[in-house]
């Protein structure tokens, strides 16, 4: 995005902020937690998918959630955004308990997610996809008696967003006709339109070709400037590249947590996730 | 003075639903026969016939009637099976000052609070049925009754009329059950009737409902166990589809039977040929012929097709045809004619196809129908 914002407190651009705290994964960076889960647990008919997870996501960081398949990452996402109801435990967002809040309300409080399987509004054009998100903040969405023309005032902002993710040339194409990678990009633009404080991305790179992976990583880095991101991703080079903190889940439990360097040094993680010859970072 | 240079009669009936056998296409044939027998022309004006299906629905009936009066220059609408459809058409006819001739519908409100100066009720009604069958059955010793009643206006009306007759003759009503309309499984209701211990199970329903109830009563051994069924409205088409095996011995009231005399046989044979399929006419078919023919005679006599004037003429002229001997029309629109109490033959008694009834006795018109003094029709001066 063109209007890179400046962190109010430090007067530095977010990239600078991140730099300063990145080397050690910012573990010491204090207690400004945006999301916290306490003993979060989810059982499906006796099968425990997520068990006693205490996740702490600090503000203005990129936090990655990795782990073997079926470790419970998506389930964690679903719990935090309330698409699933936890069996036990508590979820805090900005210090408020949201354990019993409706999913749509959570989105309105500024925590927005993407889906593991691409989610766009297939029959709406690219521009309309983004406008639907912008519209929510505009507050006219219940006004069934108003002409749709009143949405045009959002066009400028919407165009800015689709420009930023590189799908501007498809402005009037129905989103269903886009290729996979572009759908993902559009999805991010739509999410950003809500100007969320916190973004949850479920495997944003899945199924993307190498060139798209790189572009999307770049995009995520840019939008992370003044936001917090919690991300599930199997592409280790992306994870290494982007994340400040990494939590490794295994069989529903937290196996390890720390910076990329710390994680890769943990033999348990290597065994459970990266595998013996973890040249993972070399991928892509 | 004839409007638009022709006389036009519409037959509005059930061409596709439950009543399309006892009324339906056969009534169109009957009406056409009446027109042909009348000569096809009325004082030089051609007589036209149109017909339509009201599917037993009031809204369709009223829609078609309105359209016929507004755009087709129809002067009279005939047949009108199903009370709801008949009443719907009556409302429109009243508003437009046109004539409606009811043959198939049964309920008495047509000649009571829904009566009109231009509306006529021809073939039978629930009062006559109750009076005929109910009375005969009670007098034969059937003192205690249980009713299976179709849960709609006609069923309620028929039950109420019959109850009155039963009580008036010293019988008692042990109970009744209203079954959904239409309904195919009667076993549960029959069992209830059975456990009531009543001698007579009165069937205040019609068509397929009656047929199924009778068949199933036999199946469950109800009749063998000593209870009797009284079908309060049974058409010859119903008997045909039940088969004599199932229907034998049943008492019923009818306004017409094809095999009564030469005239009825002759007409019925002609009708049957025109219809094809070896069927014989029901009372509704015959009544439709009679009402159309009478309408034409009156219109000829009145020298106009203006509703009120023809209606007046219809009330003046006596009715004498194969269907009604010495029939006459009262102030409330009721065409009063003789009714017949009949019994269904045993298979062994039947000599051929459609040889189904023994006529037990004739119920003179004056006693068959509701006395004018009881009518709530505002046209009846008291």
């Amino acid at each position, binding site marked *: 995005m063109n209007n890179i914002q400046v962190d109010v407190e430090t007067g530095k651009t977010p990239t600078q902020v991140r730099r300063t705290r990145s080397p050690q994964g910012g573990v010491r960076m204090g207690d400004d937690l945006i999301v916290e889960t306490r003993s979060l647990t989810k059982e499906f008919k006796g099968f425990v998918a997520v068990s006693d997870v205490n996740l702490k996501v600090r503000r203005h960081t990129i936090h990655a959630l990795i782990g073997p398949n*079926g470790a419970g990452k998506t389930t964690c996402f679903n719990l935090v955004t309330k698409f699933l109801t936890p069996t036990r435990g508590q979820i805090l967002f900005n210090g408020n308990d949201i354990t019993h809040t409706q999913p749509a309300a959570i989105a309105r409080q500024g925590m927005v997610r993407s889906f593991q399987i691409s989610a766009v509004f297939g029959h709406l054009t690219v521009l309309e996809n983004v406008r639907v998100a912008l519209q929510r903040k505009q507050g006219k969405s219940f006004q069934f008696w108003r002409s749709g023309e009143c949405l045009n005032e959002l066009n400028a902002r919407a165009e800015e967003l689709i420009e930023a993710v590189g799908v501007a040339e498809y402005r009037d194409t129905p989103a269903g006709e886009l290729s996979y990678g572009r759908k993902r990009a559009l999805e991010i633009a739509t999410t950003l339109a809500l100007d969320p404080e916190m973004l949850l991305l479920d*495997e944003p790179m899945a*199924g993307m070709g190498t060139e798209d992976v790189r572009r999307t990583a770049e995009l995520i880095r840019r939008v992370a400037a003044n936001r917090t991101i919690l991300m599930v991703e*199997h592409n280790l080079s992306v994870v290494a590249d982007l994340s400040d903190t990494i939590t490794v889940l295994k069989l529903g439990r937290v196996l390890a947590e720390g910076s990329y360097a710390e994680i890769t040094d943990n033999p348990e993680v290597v*065994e459970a996730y990266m595998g013996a010859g973890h040249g993972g970072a070399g*991928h*892509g | 003075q004839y409007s638009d240079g022709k006389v036009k009669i519409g037959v509005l009936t059930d061409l596709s639903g439950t009543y399309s056998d006892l009324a339906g296409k056969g009534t169109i044939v009957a009406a056409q026969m009446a027109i042909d027998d009348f000569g096809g022309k009325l004082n030089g004006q051609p007589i036209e016939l149109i017909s339509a299906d009201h599917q037993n629905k009031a809204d369709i009936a009223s829609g078609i009637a309105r359209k016929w009066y507004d755009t087709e220059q129809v002067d009279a609408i005939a047949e009108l099976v199903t009370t709801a459809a008949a009443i719907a058409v009556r409302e429109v006819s009243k508003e437009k000052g046109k004539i409606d001739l009811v043959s198939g519908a049964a309920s008495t409100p047509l000649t009571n609070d829904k009566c009109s100066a231009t509306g006529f009720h021809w073939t039978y009604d629930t009062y006559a049925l109750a009076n005929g069958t109910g009375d005969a059955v009670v007098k034969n010793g059937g003192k205690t009754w249980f009713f299976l009643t179709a849960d709609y206006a006609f069923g309620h009306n028929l039950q109420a009329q019959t109850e009155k007759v039963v009580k008036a003759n010293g019988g008692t009503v042990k109970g009744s059950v209203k079954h959904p309309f239409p309904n195919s499984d009667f076993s549960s209701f029959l069992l209830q009737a059975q456990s009531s211990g009543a001698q007579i199970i009165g069937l205040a329903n019609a068509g397929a409902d009656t047929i199924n109830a009778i068949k199933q009563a036999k199946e469950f051994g109800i009749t063998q166990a000593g209870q009797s069924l009284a079908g309060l409205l049974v058409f010859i088409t119903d008997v045909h589809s039940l088969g004599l095996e199932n229907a034998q011995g049943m008492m019923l009231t009818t306004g017409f039977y094809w095999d009564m005399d030469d005239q009825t046989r002759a007409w019925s044979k002609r009708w049957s040929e025109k219809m094809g399929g070896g069927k014989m006419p029901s009372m509704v078919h015959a009544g439709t012929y009679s009402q159309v023919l009478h309408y034409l005679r009156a219109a000829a006599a009145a020298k106009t097709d203006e509703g009120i004037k023809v209606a007046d003429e219809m009330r003046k002229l006596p009715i004498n045809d194969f269907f009604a001997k010495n029939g006459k029309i009262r102030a409330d629109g009721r065409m009063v004619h003789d009714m017949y109490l009949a019994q269904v033959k045993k298979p062994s008694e039947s000599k051929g196809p459609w040889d189904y009834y023994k006529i037990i006795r004739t119920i003179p018109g004056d006693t068959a129908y509701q006395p004018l003094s009881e009518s709530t029709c505002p046209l009846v001066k008291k």
Partner: protein
Amino acid sequence: MAEPEILLSVRDLHAHYGESHVLHGMSFDVPRGEVVTLLGRNGVGKTTTMRSIMGIVGKRAGSVKYQGTETIGLSSNRIARLGLAFCPEERGIFSSLSVKENMVLPPVIKPGGLSLDEVYQLFPRLLERGSSQGTKLSGGEQQMLAIARILRTGADMLLLDEPTEGLAPVIVQHIGDIIRTLREKGFTILLVEQNFHFAATVADRHYVVEHGQVIDMIPNESLAANMDKLKSYLGV
């Protein structure tokens, strides 16, 4: 050494989705016992090629010969019975079947496939979740299931469409091992991959696809030498 037998031979294959013409004359060969990949950017027609081979694309023309039998014009069930099995990119796990039922769904078409026990040895996770509803598995588990179930059928030729998508690195390595094992057992594999680093560890040769056509073939041994060319093809 004699020329290897060509198991699958694709010649001038065209395919359409409704109005849009997607394959513009694909031609390539898959020798028996080899692992062959199709590489290419998103949307160049790799999946469509696989679907055309299986006979599940609306309109196709050209020639696809399997063991000398022409399959254009055969219905897909007949093609499968010749000995081809397909693992689709979207996985195709059935939600109305349990994991176990999904596993045993594809009929055994010839002897020579893996036994159920062998399959479970390769993917122990699937045994644990056996009674769960198929689509309740995590994304990666579903991917495993999709591969696992076609190993039993006895098909000699497997078509794997992006089998590593969404899998944890350790599993990706595992899949690599499995592909190599299968190759040793004599299976022939046609593989579509985005991740050419992975492809390089398993394949014998690579076909590069662009615009619905094969534009190049790189034997695996000369991959290193051709890396720059390949990177330019893939836009890396």
